């Protein structure tokens, strides 16, 4: 495998647009990894397969919609699917910021040779403030959800194990949750707390906790 991170970040609806912006700030080449960016409409099945085969990235960071057996790209085109092309992720550590993929696809990826799969075994929920939809990076509600999950790719790039990346992110989510239930939080932030708690409980690591990219 090569020291590279493959990022998919479609932006065809409001939810994916938030992930589009927030995933870009999560990764950079400071730690010696090449960043391969499949953004917007480039996040499609053909490009994904081609980039994976050519670059053999040690980390793959998906953003978008998903289900228990698939992860989607631009316009919800399925780019990885159980029983179809999950073998492409052989040798990689994967973080899938999407719904439910850890439930089955994660297991299938690991069975087909992926080192570890970090994802969610229920629906991933993103809460945001309607007043900030034109400036996702300034959204004080979305920040509480996306900053902690950005710690996963960032930690992997720094050389942490898959288990450590998961734990760091989980601890940061818990810290944010405690802020959200405090009197310092805004009404929006407080009302979003049940959704962050759901993400905390559904984020899991499948495969080797000790895997390093």
């Amino acid at each position: 495998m090569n020291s590279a991170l493959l990022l998919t970040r479609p932006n065809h609806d409001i939810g994916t647009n938030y992930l589009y912006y927030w995933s870009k700030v999560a990764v950079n080449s400071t730690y010696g990894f090449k960043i391969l960016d499949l953004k917007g409409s480039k996040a499609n099945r053909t490009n994904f397969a081609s980039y994976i085969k050519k670059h053999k990235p040690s980390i793959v960071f998906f953003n978008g919609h998903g289900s228990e057996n698939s992860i989607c790209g631009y316009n919800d085109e399925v780019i990885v699917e159980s029983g179809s092309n999950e073998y492409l992720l052989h040798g990689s550590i994967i973080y899938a910021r999407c719904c439910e993929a850890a439930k089955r696809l994660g297991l299938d990826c690991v069975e087909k040779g992926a080192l570890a799969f970090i994802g969610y075994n229920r629906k991933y929920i993103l809460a945001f403030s309607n007043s900030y939809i034109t400036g996702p990076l300034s959204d004080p509600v979305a920040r509480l959800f996306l900053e902690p999950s950005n710690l996963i790719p960032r930690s992997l790039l720094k050389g942490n194990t898959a288990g450590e990346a998961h734990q760091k992110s989980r601890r940061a989510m818990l810290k944010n949750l405690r802020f959200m239930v405090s009197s310092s939080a805004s009404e929006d932030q407080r009302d979003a707390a049940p959704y962050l708690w759901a993400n905390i409980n559904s984020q899991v690591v499948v495969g080797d906790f000790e895997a390093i990219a």
Partner: protein
Amino acid sequence: MTQDKKIRRLEDKETMEEARKLVIERIKAASDDLKICIGSKNTEYSKQEILETLKEDSELSKEIIDVQLKYLRDMASGTIYQD
């Protein structure tokens, strides 16, 4: 179906209805500006849309009720304050 099973089903249905009412009241009291993305397609929901969803017996409605109830239970038990 035995009498016991019939009674249990009725109780489950009543409990589910109570839970739905509780969650509807919580969402009504929530901020108008808050939206959520959940699920796989075209998935942003405003407060009003969540309230509409909660009237139905859909997968999404069950998911939102589950999320809210788990949060309330875990708040009450103190689980969310543990590491």
